[in-house]
């Protein structure tokens, strides 16, 4: 580090030079087309099937899958944003404005939650519209003070308002780094404020996301519980967010200003983080499995039984291969982590695997029309609706990304990323 301090900073860049390229707007327009088309198909399917309880339920099942994916990207962006404020580092600087754009989609994501609130009785056994066995009735009776509609919706409102407060502050303060700091002290104060809010925010994130993951996903099952569930969702969110940000970063790397700003070093660092998150998620997911599988208790093991029978086993094995084995083996290679196009391909594979995993987590909870545990029985709605929600989210993301320069020009690390990669590293 001493080397950097003795070197004179390179020539500065202005926010104008860091403006987002035309491709950002182009992507927004392209994705809004996908969003419109898939939304129309999804709504048509809903109208066509709305005659039966199962038909309407099918809509909400698919909606929840798509929603959890978008929600994960939004809150995962916030989590990574806070993490990079706490740890510092140039890897975070190059994706920071993208993370902020992701976090600013909170209003859309909160708005998208409204259908789930209206459809709660189609999704959640505690909402009272589904037949339950004795165990389910007992479990829900005991959990009634926590799992009832008013408490559930109240918590959801609290989550969105409090996350919104953090996101508002981070984005507001971030604008101050687009203009020259009044003094070195002011710049340091700002860094410190970011760091403190980020540290506290991460603790708050861990607690609230654990509760939200219980509220929105775990409570799909009347009886089952897992104490690692919240961590699993944190791991999943940062993994899918990192994958999404790398996909966008690799795209932007083809155009100015990122073309000349993004060095192999930072891309490599982000690739390494992606590998680390793949391993972290696998570790958490396997931990849950091995504990439940070893214990073999009736109230826990049923969750895995439902997900390894009735056609779900091939789905699970496919997920193990494409969520872990393939990305892991590819990302071990150092050269691939330095090549934007290849890294982007792996990142997109991980995003698809994420949607697949959410599908695998959510859907076996629902009984078939035969009343048995859910069979693997995908239909068009399961494909179209997640595409519709994801493309709405991506449109919102690019809309937000366009609003600000791609890098805060007066961040203290900017002179360092302006140095050519072969110099002092």
């Amino acid at each position: 580090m001493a080397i950097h301090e003795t070197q004179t900073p390179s020539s500065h860049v202005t926010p104008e030079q860091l403006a987002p390229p035309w491709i950002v707007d182009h992507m927004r327009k392209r994705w809004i087309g996908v969003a419109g088309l898939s939304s129309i198909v999804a709504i048509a399917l809903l109208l066509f099937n709305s005659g039966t309880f199962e038909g309407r339920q099918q809509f909400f099942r698919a909606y929840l899958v798509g929603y959890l994916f978008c929600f994960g990207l939004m809150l995962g962006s916030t989590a990574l944003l806070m993490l990079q404020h706490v740890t510092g580092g140039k890897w975070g600087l190059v994706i920071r404005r993208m993370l902020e754009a992701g976090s600013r989609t909170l209003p859309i994501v909160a708005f998208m939650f409204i259908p789930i609130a209206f459809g709660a009785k189609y999704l959640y056994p505690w909402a009272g519209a589904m037949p339950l066995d004795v165990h389910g009735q007992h479990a829900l009776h005991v959990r009634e003070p926590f799992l009832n509609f008013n408490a559930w919706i109240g918590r959801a409102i609290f989550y969105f308002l409090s996350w919104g407060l953090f996101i508002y502050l981070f984005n507001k303060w971030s604008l101050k780094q687009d203009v020259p700091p009044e003094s070195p002290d002011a710049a340091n104060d700002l860094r410190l404020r970011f760091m403190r809010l980020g540290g506290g925010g991460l603790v708050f994130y861990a607690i609230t996301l654990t509760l939200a993951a219980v509220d929105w996903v775990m409570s799909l099952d009347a009886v089952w519980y897992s104490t690692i569930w919240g961590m699993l969702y944190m791991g999943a969110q940062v993994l899918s967010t990192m994958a999404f940000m790398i996909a966008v970063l690799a795209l932007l790397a083809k155009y100015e200003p990122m073309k000349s700003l993004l060095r192999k070093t930072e891309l490599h660092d982000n690739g390494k983080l992606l590998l680390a998150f793949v391993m972290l998620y696998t570790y958490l997911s396997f931990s849950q499995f091995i504990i439940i599988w070893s214990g073999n208790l009736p109230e826990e093991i049923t969750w895995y039984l439902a997900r390894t029978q009735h056609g779900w086993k091939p789905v699970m094995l496919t997920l193990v291969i494409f969520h872990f084995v393939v990305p892991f083996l590819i990302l071990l290679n150092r050269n691939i982590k330095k090549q934007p196009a290849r890294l982007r391909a792996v990142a997109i594979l991980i995003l698809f695997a994420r949607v697949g995993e959410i599908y695998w987590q959510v859907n076996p909870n629902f009984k078939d029309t035969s009343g048995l545990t859910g069979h693997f029985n995908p239909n068009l709605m399961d494909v179209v609706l997640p595409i519709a929600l994801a493309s709405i989210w991506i449109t919102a993301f690019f809309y937000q990304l366009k609003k600000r320069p791609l890098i805060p020009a007066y961040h203290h690390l900017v002179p360092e990323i302006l140095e050519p990669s072969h110099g002092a590293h």
Partner: protein
Amino acid sequence: MKPTGIYGLMAEFDTADELVDAGRKAYSEGYRKLDAYSPFPIEALDEAIGIPHTILPWLVFFGGLLGGAAGYSLEYWTQVIHLPFIIGGKPLHSWPNFIPVWFETTVLGASLTAVIGMLGLNGLPLPYHPVFNIDEFLNHAQKDKFFLVIESKDPRFNLDSSKKFLSSLSPANVWEVPN
């Protein structure tokens, strides 16, 4: 045995960029037995002086596989052959239970291979090296100066013409390094 002859020629530079440029020029001039010294890692330097890719990652990969195979075999032998014991009503060969130990021995195999392989390939620890004969090197190589060495083993090495070549790169100093 008293060492004879010279080890090579050393050029001293003030900045990392100059060192990388000089390395690149020396490589394109045809020199292959090159080495560069800097107080901190410089990413582009390996490529500039044509250092071949290390095979260490592959050694580590196969070390990991070997460690994993050994760990799994140990589990299989103890749990299934030597002391078959039914735990929790599960089959003797309950492979999900084997994964944590298999994983740990994979990491053990990979990390031991990484450390031992690294030492084996780079020849450390090395108590003596000819470049230590240069006082300027001893005093500055770990602090603030950058050095490029052309070894006399290089087929293109010629004391006079190589010295002239190094001087043309505008170094701060050029030395003959005794063996």
